[in-house]
């Protein structure tokens, strides 16, 4: 296993050196995401069409748009689970496929996807336990993170003993233990109640503010997008395109009280108007 790990690290280094020369101009996007005229279709059905986008390393970007507009497909293309039909895509300085095999992208799905036969601790380290050869040096033990999100007393509990919010916190820790530079989240709080969602927002803000991680966050909630993001991208109905790109200039660290700020309300209104505008044919 050590040899495999070494080989993986070597390959990593080579990749970075090789790409270093090319990407030095875009060094800010090195561990970000870059899309150039990206298109994705299933047969005749165009899901994403000519989408160009730069997501800077270390920023928190939300994509908000109507249901069924292809946001999940876009995430799957970025995570290397689905090939693009046309156009260019760079994730963490390489192809999505390479990022995936080097465990550079950590996913948080809408359903927590916890395995019922694994304890909280074992679930939190699931992504470390598979494809071990690719574990990055930044990977960490889940226990401190679990304690940080308030699950310290539940390490040996099973998922069925946890509430929905607690389960989603395990899913969050599971992604963060990888130490991946990219966090991809697909409506992770959609199934939670309003009180739990607000709690999850402050937990997520706290977790990502202490780390140099790029987050791509898909949501249906305007206030969630504004409360969490540095940038909100408003997408149109299918095929997905970006109709507005709104910078969220609220101060960090974000605290829950930010939602009472008049600027917060203004920004929410801006996102809402862009959404309405984008819905029109």
């Amino acid at each position, binding site marked *: 296993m050590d040899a495999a790990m070494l080989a993986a690290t070597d390959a990593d280094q080579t990749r970075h050196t090789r790409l270093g020369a090319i990407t030095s101009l875009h060094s800010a996007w090195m561990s970000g995401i870059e899309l150039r005229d990206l298109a994705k279709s299933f047969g005749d059905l165009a899901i994403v069409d000519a989408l160009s986008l730069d997501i800077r390393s270390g920023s928190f970007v939300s994509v908000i748009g109507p249901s069924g507009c292809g946001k999940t497909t876009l995430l799957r293309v970025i995570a290397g*689970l689905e090939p693009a039909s046309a156009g260019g895509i760079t994730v963490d300085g390489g192809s999505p496929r390479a990022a995936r095999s080097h465990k550079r992208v*950590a996913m948080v799905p809408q359903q*927590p996807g916890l395995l019922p*036969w694994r304890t909280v601790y074992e679930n939190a380290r699931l992504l470390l336990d598979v*494809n071990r050869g690719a574990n990055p040096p930044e990977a960490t033990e889940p226990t401190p993170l679990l304690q940080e999100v308030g699950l310290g007393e539940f390490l040996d509990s099973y*998922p*069925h*003993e946890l509430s929905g919010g607690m389960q989603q916190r395990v899913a969050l820790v*599971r992604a963060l233990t990888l130490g991946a530079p990219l966090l991809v989240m697909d409506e992770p709080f959609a199934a939670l109640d309003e009180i739990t969602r607000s709690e999850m927002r402050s937990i997520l803000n706290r977790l990502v503010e202490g780390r140099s991680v790029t987050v791509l966050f898909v949501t249906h909630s305007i206030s969630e997008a504004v409360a969490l993001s540095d940038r909100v991208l408003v997408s149109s109905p299918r095929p997905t395109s970006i109709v507005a790109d709104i910078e969220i200039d609220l101060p960090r660290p974000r605290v829950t009280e930010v939602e009472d700020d008049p600027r917060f309300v203004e920004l929410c209104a801006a996102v809402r108007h862009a959404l309405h505008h984008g819905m029109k044919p």
Partner: protein
Amino acid sequence: MSRRLLAPFVGIVGFLALWEGVVRVGDVRPFVLRPPSRIVSYLADHFGDYASAAWVTAQHAVIGSLIGLLIALLIGSAMAASRFAEQAAQPLLTLLQVTPFVAYIASVVLWLGSGTRPAVFIVALVSIPGFTFSTVDGMRSADPAARELLASVDASRAEVLWRLRLPSAIPSLFTTARYNVGLALIASYLVEGGNFANEGLGAIGKRAAALNEGDALWGAIFSMAILGTIALLLLSLLQRLVMGWHVSQRTRPT
């Protein structure tokens, strides 16, 4: 605990008492239906013979079932991974399931000789279809979110199989195992009766039927019932041990 053991006990004793009562009150002649008290006392008198025969039958059933389970896991994994493999195997499994195995016991005995081998072979054979179908169903039921997650870090097929798909099949495999217990015992009994090794409860039953020894035959039947009950009990214990995380194993509402 006491209540959980009490209920089945009351059920069994009640049934036997009713039977005894019908035979005595109705004055049914013994060759039509003998009272359970007579069968039980016969069993007690010949305890050694029946216990050692039951041990042989139990071994046939358990070893055969385990081999069947192993083969089913292999076939099931292949079927869950490939539609082609599934479509190729489906008719064969159905054929295996609907063919009355009694019909080919003699051929198998001629082929494999008498004794343990044909018994284990047929028990394995009859337990394969059920175990295979539940393996496929269980593996297909693996949480899509977890599958996506494992794919996102490039987990190998073997890792997905071991970490996600096989554990997902455990609940349906246990359900099938409860059904297969009966099937395996009956198969053991019939093969033991159909070969010339003269061991196992099936051999006792066969000889008793041929010689018209009703007490001996009913002794074999009761022994089979006791064996089946013990097997189901052990299976429940194993399930509790292996599947403590599963909804079906929770006694307290959460």
